[in-house]
C-alpha cells in the first residue's frame, strides 16, 4: 500500500507492506526530487558556498550557513574566530531551531490529530523569531551574515535590547499557548505527571496520546547520537541510557539508494536517531529522561522533547546574550587568504531536526568536493528488512497507516534537505 506524505517541504512516498496479521512489516521510503547542490558546489570558489548552501533549505538554511562556515574554517589549521561571532552564530541558530519547532507542531502534527490547522498560532512565534535572526543577520530566510573569520554585523546595545524583548515575547507566547504554567518551575520538572495536569496545546496533545493509549507508539532502536557540540548541546551517543562521548566523523558512512534520491547514513554501520530527543537524552533533561524511561523513544517522547526544547533554548539564549562583549571584535580577518588554502574540513551543527554535517575539500581555495549529510537522512534512512532504518523500525507493527504517518512526521521530516 502506498501513501504520499506531503507538507514536508516536498514529498515522500511510503510503500507499506503488511504481514498476515495486517500489521506493517516493512516500509519503503522514497524521495523523488533532487537538485544536486553538492555537484553545483564543485569547482566554485570556497566562499560561494556561503551563499549557495543556505539555499539548500528554506526552513533550516541558517544551519547550513553555519555548518558551511565551520567547515571552511576547519580547513585552516588554526584560525582565530572571535568569541562574539561564536555566540551570535549559536544565537541565530537557536532562533531558527525554535521557529521550526513551532511550525512543526501547529502545521504538521496537530492537523494529523484531527485539529483545525492553526496557521497563525504557528506563524506568530516564528515571525518573532525570524525577526530576531534578522536583527543580527539582515534577513530570514537565507541570510549570509556569517563568514570565515567571524560575522559581518556589529551588534549594538540597542540590538541586544531588541533581541531580549523578542525572546521574552516568545517565552510569553509559549507559556500562554503551549504549556500554561504560572510557576518558574516548569523548566525543571522531573516527572511527566507534573505537567500533565496543566493546560495548553502541548499538554492537550500529550493527553490525547494517553487517552488513545498511543504513548508507546513509534518506538525505534533507542539509539541516539548528537555531533553538534556547542555551549548548550552535548555531543555523544547514547544507547538506551549508556552514554559515550567518543565520536569520530570518519565512522559516518553514506550509501546511495537505488529507488530514491535520498542517501542512507550510518555510524559504525548502525542507524541512529538524531534530533531533539537525542539532544535531550545527551543533555540529561530530567523531564525527557522520565518520559523515555516510561514510554521509550516513542512519538510521545519525541513531541515532548521537541517542544520542551523551546523554553530551554530561550533561557540559554538569554545567557548567551549576556556573554557578548561589545568592546571585542566580531570578525578577525584570517591571516592567510582563502585562495591559498588547500585541505579538508568538517562543519557540524545541531539543526532543528538534528545533526547536520558538512564536509569540504579545498584546493587553492577552490572546492574540489562537497558533501552534505542532513538530519533527515539519519532518521529516514531507507534500510532493508534485515536492517531497518530508524523511522522504518518505528513504523513496523502498526496496522493503521494514518498512525504510521504521525510516527513518520514525529521525526520532523524535511524533503528538500534530505535530497538536496
Amino acid at each position, binding site marked *: 500500500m502506498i501513501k*504520499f*506524505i*506531503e*507538507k514536508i*517541504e*516536498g*514529498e515522500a512516498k511510503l510503500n507499506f507492506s503488511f504481514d498476515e496479521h495486517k500489521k506493517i512489516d516493512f516500509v519503503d521510503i522514497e524521495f*523523488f*526530487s*533532487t*537538485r*544536486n*547542490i553538492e*555537484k*553545483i558546489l564543485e569547482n*566554485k*570558489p570556497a*566562499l*560561494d558556498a556561503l*551563499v*549557495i548552501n543556505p*539555499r*539548500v*533549505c*528554506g*526552513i533550516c*538554511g541558517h544551519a547550513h550557513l553555519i555548518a558551511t562556515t565551520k567547515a571552511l574554517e576547519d580547513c585552516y589549521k588554526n584560525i582565530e574566530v572571535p568569541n562574539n561571532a561564536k555566540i551570535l552564530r549559536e544565537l541565530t541558530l537557536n532562533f531558527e531551531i525554535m521557529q521550526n519547532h513551532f511550525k512543526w507542531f501547529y*502545521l504538521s502534527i496537530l492537523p494529523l490529530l484531527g485539529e483545525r490547522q492553526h*496557521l*497563525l498560532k504557528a*506563524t506568530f512565534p*516564528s*515571525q518573532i523569531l*525570524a*525577526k530576531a*535572526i*534578522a*536583527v*543580527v543577520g*539582515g*534577513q*530570514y*530566510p*537565507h*541570510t*549570509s*551574515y556569517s*563568514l570565515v*573569520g*567571524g560575522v*559581518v*554585523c*556589529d551588534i549594538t546595545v540597542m540590538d541586544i535590547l531588541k533581541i531580549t524583548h523578542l525572546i521574552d515575547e516568545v517565552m510569553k507566547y509559549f507559556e500562554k499557548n503551549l504549556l500554561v504554567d504560572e510557576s518558574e518551575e516548569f523548566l525543571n520538572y522531573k516527572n511527566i505527571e507534573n505537567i500533565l495536569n496543566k493546560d495548553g496545546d502541548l499538554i492537550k496533545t500529550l493527553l490525547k496520546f494517553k487517552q488513545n493509549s498511543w504513548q508507546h507508539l513509534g518506538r525505534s532502536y533507542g539509539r541516539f547520537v548528537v555531533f553538534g557540540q556547542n555551549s548548550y548541546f552535548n555531543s555523544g551517543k547514547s544507547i538506551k541510557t549508556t552514554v559515550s562521548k567518543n565520536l569520530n566523523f570518519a565512522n559516518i558512512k553514506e550509501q546511495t539508494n537505488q529507488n530514491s*534520491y535520498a542517501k542512507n547514513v550510518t555510524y559504525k554501520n548502525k542507524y541512529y536517531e538524531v534530533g531533539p530527543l537525542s539532544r535531550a537524552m545527551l543533555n540529561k533533561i530530567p523531564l525527557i529522561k522520565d518520559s523515555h524511561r516510561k514510554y521509550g523513544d516513542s512519538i510521545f517522547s519525541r513531541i515532548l522533547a521537541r517542544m520542551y526544547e523551546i523554553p530551554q533554548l530561550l533561557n540559554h539564549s538569554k545567557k548567551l546574550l549576556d556573554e557578548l562583549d561589545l568592546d571585542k*571584535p*566580531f*570578525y*578577525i*580577518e584570517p591571516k592567510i587568504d582563502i585562495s591559498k588554502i588547500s585541505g579538508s574540513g568538517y562543519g557540524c551543527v545541531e539543526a532543528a531536526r538534528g545533526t547536520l554535517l558538512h564536509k569540504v575539500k579545498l584546493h587553492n581555495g577552490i572546492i574540489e568536493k562537497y558533501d552534505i549529510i542532513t538530519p533527515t537522512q539519519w532518521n529516514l534512512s531507507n534500510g532493508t528488512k534485515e536492517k531497518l532504518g530508524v523511522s522504518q523500525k518505528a513504523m513496523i507493527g502498526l496496522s493503521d497507516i494514518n498512525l504510521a504517518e504521525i510516527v513518520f512526521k514525529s521525526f520532523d521530516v524535511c524533503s*528538500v534537505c534530505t535530497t538536496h
Partner: protein
Amino acid sequence: MKHNDLLKKFNLRLEELEKMPRMDQSKTITEVIEEKGFSRREFMKWATATCALLALPAEFTPLVAKAAELADRLPIIWLHMAECTGCSESLLRSDAPSIDSLIFDHISLEYHETLMAAAGWQAEENLENAMKKYKGRYVLMVEGGVPIANEGSFLTIGGHAKRGKDIAIEASNDAAAIFAIGTCSSFGGVQAAIPNPTGAVGLSEVTNKPVINVPGCPPSEKNIVGTLLHFLLYGTLPALDAFNRPKWAYKHRIHDLCERRGHFDAGEFVEQFGDEGAKNGYCLYKVGCKGPYTFNNCSKNKFNQGTSWPVQAGFGCMGCSEPDFWDTMGTVGEPLKDKLYNTVFDGMGADATADNIGVNLLIATGVGIAAHAAISAIKHPKGDE
C-alpha cells in the same frame, strides 16, 4: 493613463470582482481581520503603506483596501517545483500586524502543498479539481525552478508520478495570470548554477504563456502580496522590465536608495569586514556588495517586517533577484570590477526604456564604481601576505 481614468477602471474592476462569489462563504476578509483584533484604522494604515508600495497616489488607498477585502474572490493555485520552500517561508511571515498573512490565510489558496490540510492522493485530486473548476480564472503562483534534464525526471509529484514540468505546463495553460515567485521559478535559481545538473529553468522557459517574474531569494513578502493586489486592481499584467519583473518593485537598483549610499558618494568604504569602516556603517561595495547591479526594492522595504536587510547587517547585496546570480555576480566578498561593462543591455541596466535622466545617472554611477574599484585594487591588501 490619467488618475481619473485609472480610478474609474479600478472601480469597474472591483465592482466586477465583488459580484463574484467568495471562495469561503463563512466569513469575509473584513470579519477575519476584525476578529483577530485589528481595528479599521490599522487596516487602513496597512492599505496606505501598500498603496505607496505599488506607486499609486494616496487617493487610491480606499481602493487598495477594497481590493484586499475582495482578495477571496480570486482562486489561487500555488505549485512547488525544485526549490527550498524559502518563498513560502517569506510569505508565511509577512507583515506584522500580520494583515498580509491574514489575507493569505483566508484567501482561497485552492492548492498550496505546504499550507493546505489535504495530502497525497487527496491533494492531487484537489489540484485537478481546482484547475477544472476555475479554468481560465485562477491565478497560478509557482515557486521553484523546473528541472527539464533527463526528460524532467528529477522532480516527480504525486501518485501518478507526474513530472513537475508537465504539471507546470498544464497549470499554466488555463491560468488567468501566472506569477513566478522567487528567483528559482523566475530564472532557474540556485539549482541552475553551473553545471546545472538537473537542467533547472525558469517557468517562462517551459510555458508559452506570459509569466510575471517576482524574483528574489527569497522575494520580500511585500512584493508577493503587492503583485497579487496589483492584479486584483488592474486585472491586467503590470508594466514589466526586460526580465518580466513588475516595474513598481524592480525599477530601481538596490544602490539607488541604499541607506549607505551617502558613504559611497563620499568615497567611504569598508575595506574588510570588522574594520572601523564597518563599525561606522560605510559602503560595502569593496567587500563585495552587488547592490549597484541589482534591481529590487529591498533598500526601501527591508525584510522580516522591516527589521533589517543584508546591507544593514553589513554583508552587502548578493544580487539574488538577477538572472543566474550564482554564476554572473562573481565571487563572494569581492567587488564586481569587470561587471561594469557587461551588465544587461551593455551597461544600460535591465530597464531598457529608462528615460535620459535615468541613463545619465546610471553612467555617472558606473564611472564612480570604476574609479573606486581601481583604488580598491591598490588599497586592499588581501592576498599580499
